[in-house]
């Protein structure tokens, strides 16, 4: 290769290299502008309401910051965006917090423990009404999601294992129409899909998350470093949340707004709320978060994820990713704490110190 060619190539490559700066992750430091991602789910609908009615702006103004709240139609994409650093906080479940951002090395703190699923997630069989009948069947579900976890727990409860069934990964968007086809006989999914499927007369609910209360937890989680440098952001999130909880309890219009935004009516929304244990006050949430139960349940979730190799390929045990609880005790490796339950901001809300 002649000299000018190689010089040209070197120059061009250097130019390309300088462009990669655009790829570099956001550096945590004190800042004023924050971005929050959320997706449609009964326990997270308050975020949409709070944005539309100015509650978000009210609290952001109070702390002299701006908060941009973005709704995602695709739940997984919202978590991926958060993990990649494009958002400072995201709504997700404890299980996904562990397997996506935490396993990806993004230290994540649960600022608000909003609710746990208490029947919202369910396993439905076609024409069979005992969970034991699931043996040998093909189960359609979103693999590695809370539905998969629910299936694992359900099988355990009747002394079966995952090898006793065949799992087929199926998009949640197509779950209801999948159930309508003859060769789909068992599904594990969540509301409102569950309600739709149960409308067909042969659908029998055989197991739901009310049998494992407190294991599937819905959170508002933020990047730990961002939170450490900007406690105002955590306080604003807590302020927004409990203002909205109050509105949901007291204002009929608030519930109507959320019902409509989630594509149903008040009756349908109530049906979902019924199977969701929503912590209406900070005190309830703190009691749950600081209780002993949450540690044992976190271990169950970690064990499931470890079994599925979702804690990273190098993980040697279910405790490969440490989980810190409000009392600073840690499950798993203390040197690799990536998920933290922190009651500080909820406590401030309870104490009226926001």
């Amino acid at each position: 290769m002649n000299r000018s060619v190689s010089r040209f190539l070197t120059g061009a490559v250097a130019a390309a290299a300088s462009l990669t700066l655009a790829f570099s992750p956001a550096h945590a430091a004190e800042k004023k502008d924050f971005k929050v991602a959320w997706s449609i789910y009964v326990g997270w609908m308050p975020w949409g309401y709070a944005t539309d009615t100015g509650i978000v702006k009210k609290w952001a103004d109070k702390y002299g910051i701006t908060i941009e709240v973005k709704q995602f139609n695709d739940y997984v994409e919202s978590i991926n965006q958060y993990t990649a650093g494009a958002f400072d906080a995201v709504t997700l479940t404890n299980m996904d917090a562990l397997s996506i951002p935490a396993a990806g090395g993004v230290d994540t703190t649960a600022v608000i423990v909003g609710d746990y699923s208490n029947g919202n997630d369910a396993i439905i069989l076609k024409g069979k009404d005992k969970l034991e009948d699931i043996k040998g069947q093909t189960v359609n579900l979103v693999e590695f999601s809370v539905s998969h976890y629910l299936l694992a727990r359900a099988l355990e409860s009747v002394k079966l294992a995952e090898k006793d069934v065949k799992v087929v990964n199926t998009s949640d968007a197509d779950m209801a129409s999948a159930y309508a086809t003859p060769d789909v006989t068992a599904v594990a999914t969540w509301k409102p899909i569950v309600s739709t499927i149960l409308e067909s007369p042969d659908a029998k609910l055989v197991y739901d998350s009310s049998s494992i209360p407190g294991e599937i937890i819905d959170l508002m989680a933020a990047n730990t470093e961002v939170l450490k440098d900007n406690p105002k952001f955590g306080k604003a999130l807590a302020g927004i949340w409990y203002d909205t909880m109050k509105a949901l309890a007291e204002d009929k219009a608030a519930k109507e707004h959320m019902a409509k935004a989630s594509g149903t009516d008040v009756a349908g929304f109530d049906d979902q709320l019924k199977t969701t244990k929503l912590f209406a006050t900070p005190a309830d949430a703190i009691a749950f978060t600081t209780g002993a139960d949450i540690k044992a349940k976190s271990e169950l979730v970690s064990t499931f994820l470890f079994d599925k190799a979702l804690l990273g390929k190098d993980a040697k045990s279910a405790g490969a990713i440490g989980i810190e609880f409000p009392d600073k005790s840690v499950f798993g490796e203390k040197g690799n704490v990536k998920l933290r339950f922190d009651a500080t901001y909820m406590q401030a809300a309870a104490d009226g110190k926001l």
Partner: protein
Amino acid sequence: MRLINIKPDRTWTFALAVLPFLALLVAYLMGSAMRLAENPNDKLLPGFGAMAEAVKHMALQPDPRSGIYLMWNDTLSSLSLLLTALAVSTLIALVVGILIGLLPLVGATFGPVVAVASMVPPLALLPILFIIMGLGDAAKIALIVIGTALKLVRDVALRVKDLPREQIIKAQTLGASTWQIGTRVVLPQMLPRLIDAVRLELGPAWLFLIAAEAIAADAGLGYRIFLVRRYLAMDVIIPYVIWITLLAFLMDLALRLLQQKAFPWFAGARAA
């Protein structure tokens, strides 16, 4: 000198071709290094070591849960769907395309239907296909067939009509029947042209396959990508994307070579 007259010599041609690949590689490496320096567990831009490790897990070691080699299993599953569907499409295209192009009666009857149907966006049919044919392989094959066959049929029909009128007349003056014209004059001339058309449809075929696998599957290259996307495993996704690209490229190359070897007359006829 005008820009249109500046042509790279051989060294420059090579260098210019390599450049975008090299630039991409360097940009990736630097971006990856930067993110990994900040967070050694970063999943967005894994280093090549992590990707090699992931490929080793997926391709060279059996999966501890099921005992199968995931990447080969995925490849086999996807390729068998894709090749089955393409074979069906090709056969449909040859038979229907030649009939429409050669027989005015068939053309008048089915030409407009095919023209309209080929405008239906296949992905929009996916929910319907899943309900009619279930979530199994049949629906996936049907999606690829619908997505590719109609375009191939139109292409073949147009190319049959493009055959010089003189050839068809000549065959008749040599005493050929309609069947003989179809099988000895038209069909052999359509085969190499169909290879061109199939090469162009490879991209859409992969697209439909991956889209279908993303919605419901228990194996396949598209299935794996959309599954591991759930935990942002770019160390698996990126090698899979490269692998799919390589497979598609090799299929294209194989078709091109087949055309050269099996139809030696075609290059000359095309130039004429």
